[in-house]
């Protein structure tokens, strides 16, 4: 517990709800191979950028939470090396999740909701180029029945893609094409089969990268930015870990997380979906009811999504950051951000973000430009 004097200086917590917003977002360039830089060297410019946006110094942050993976680094406690980047000595209030940074953001959000912090710095990074990410990710599978077979991440996503094709929800040539067209770019060439039915154009490029977000409560958020991206709801859910128990064409955990986050209460105008594989976007659009008339006015992945750049452990946090940045730029009033972790969309997190109502817009979602 904070000492009474410090606690008294904080805003009162109104019941369980306290307004918390994303007030800043920064990300690194995404590169194929970042051998020239250590994790902390890659992270430092991003941390400086996100703090500069708020005028805060690392020292001013109440709580810091990070997401990364020892298996990507090939070293135990690898996150401790990156802590140098936030000035961890003298001791700071700090935590880490061995997950995508979106889950670190969830922890930071809870920390602010409890009233123990007014500001939080969330960062995530992954240097998957130092190993073979397809092999590395097999180590998160059931160690008794599955991991000894070394099914790589593309193989498992391909099983899901085939299930979608069999169910008539997509076809073999469609995923890469639709993904590219939606972004207004040239249709991405389908490329060679990696594990059929997935081709290179349906699979995420292996990139290294880092991202950071600053969260702040109520009036602190209003002081730090003109247009905070308020987190109206945030929830994460998980499926059974055995792939053979699940219906791979559906994502009930995403739907439930969205429901609990309030995503279905009013339409959103933007959706940032973390679909590392093109076919997974089909599953997410269905789970989040973004297809059909309801989704006609929703800009899906204006950032390019994870198929453009999927820095493992940061790509989910980037979805939240991109959605928030769009609100802060005035390009969105209500946005949904989704993050995933594990094979075939095993774990899913949904955040609903909103900007304050603006005169003249009537709070209506605007058309994408």
């Amino acid at each position, binding site marked *: 517990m904070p000492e009474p004097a410090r606690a008294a200086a904080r805003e009162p917590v109104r019941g369980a709800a306290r307004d918390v917003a994303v007030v800043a977002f920064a990300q690194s360039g995404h590169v194929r191979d*970042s*051998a*020239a*830089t*250590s*994790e*902390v*060297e890659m992270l*430092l410019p991003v*941390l400086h950028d996100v703090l500069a946006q708020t005028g805060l110094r*690392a020292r001013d942050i109440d709580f810091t939470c990070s997401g990364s993976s020892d*298996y990507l680094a*090939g070293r135990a406690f690898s996150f401790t*090396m990156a*802590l*140098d*980047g*936030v*000035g*961890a*000595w*003298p001791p700071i209030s700090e935590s880490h999740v061995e997950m995508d940074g979106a889950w670190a953001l969830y922890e930071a959000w809870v920390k602010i909701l409890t009233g123990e912090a007014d500001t939080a710095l969330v960062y995530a990074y992954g240097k998957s*180029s*130092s*190993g*073979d990410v*397809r*092999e*590395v990710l097999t*180590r998160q599978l059931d*160690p*008794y*029945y*599955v*991991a*000894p*077979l*070394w*099914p*790589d991440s593309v*193989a*498992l996503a*391909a*099983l*899901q*893609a*085939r*299930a979608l094709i*069999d169910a008539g929800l997509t076809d073999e040539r469609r995923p890469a094409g639709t993904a590219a067209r939606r972004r207004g770019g040239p249709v991405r060439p389908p490329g060679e*089969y990696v*594990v*059929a*039915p*997935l081709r290179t154009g349906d699979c995420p490029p292996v990139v290294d990268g880092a991202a950071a977000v600053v969260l702040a409560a109520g009036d602190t958020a209003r002081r730090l930015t003109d247009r905070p991206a308020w987190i109206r709801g945030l929830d994460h859910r998980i499926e*059974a870990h*055995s*792939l*053979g*128990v699940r219906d*791979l064409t559906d994502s009930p955990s995403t739907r439930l997380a969205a429901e609990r986050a309030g995503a279905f209460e009013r339409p959103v105008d933007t959706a940032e979906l973390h679909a590392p594989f093109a076919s997974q976007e089909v599953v997410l659009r269905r789970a989040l009811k973004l297809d059909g008339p309801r989704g006609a006015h929703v800009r899906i992945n204006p950032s390019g999504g994870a198929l453009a750049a999927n820095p493992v452990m940061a790509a989910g946090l980037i979805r939240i950051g991109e959605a928030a940045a769009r609100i802060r730029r005035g390009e969105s009033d209500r946005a949904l951000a989704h993050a995933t972790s594990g094979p075939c969309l095993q774990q899913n997190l949904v955040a609903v973000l909103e900007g304050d109502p603006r005169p003249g817009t009537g709070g209506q979602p605007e058309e994408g430009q």
Partner: protein
Amino acid sequence: MSEVLTAPLVVEFPFTRSLGPVQSAFLTGLRERCVLGVRATDGRVVVPPVEYDPVTADEIRDLVEVGTGGTVTTWAWNPSPRRGQPLAAPFAWVLVRLDGADTALLHALDAPGPEAVRTGMRVRIRWAAERTGAITDIACFEPAEGDRTVHQPQAHSGEFDDPLTGITTPARLDYTYSPGRAQSRYLQALADHRTIGERCPSCRKVYVPPRGACPTCGVATTTQVEVGPRGTVTTYCIVNIKARNLDIEVPYVYAHIALDGADLALHARIGGIPYDQVRMGLRVEPVWTDGSRYPDHYRPTGEPDADYDSYKELI
């Protein structure tokens, strides 16, 4: 600007895991060519079996034997098998619902090409010649199109002679380790018998070895500063147990050494002096062996001991 170093890094470990009653019965069963599932709270037969219900999370133990033939529920064609995967030639990954089961098991299907595979096709288990009680006791599945056996799940005690209580699953991952710019500069200077630290532009402290950031200020350190070669023992311990693969006679002294000009102590072995004569404040210098990229140990310089006040911040 110096070149950034990289080196191969292999992480290899034989993971030893104990088995609960359900996993033990399943894996021991595979050794005996018998496939077991478990009945879930809703009556479904889950194969491979789990100890807790996938829906209710209740503990479940009701084992049943299912068939060794089944139906492909989804598949993916793997044109280039990778290390550790079940087959060396191109194969299909499959989820197979075994006869009598309500869920599917992941494995490989040996088929001549993707045109020979479809969802709904009949397949059967091809057992490994040598079975030890592992998922790899199923070598793979093979097509069994004519097979229309109807298999009803049979209750099974899960009891076998000589049941498995644990498994060992070796794992190896290969990395290219890169220490980044700051540590590369440090290691390259060390190969020239020089020690460099980096100065924080904010608090002015010199960190050695440098990691590219000041852990107090959270800013990049960019100015290189040569430190040492001499330094002061700030604290030490006496090692009495011989480490494996290390041919240093015990007892020996391991110490923290504050190199002259550095604001962080390094650690290294102290030699050239009886272990019981090492003391705080002892002045030492590095000893290099031929062709070595780092000092073998530090030895006394013969200078008078340093004042306690000169190193007390670095203990």
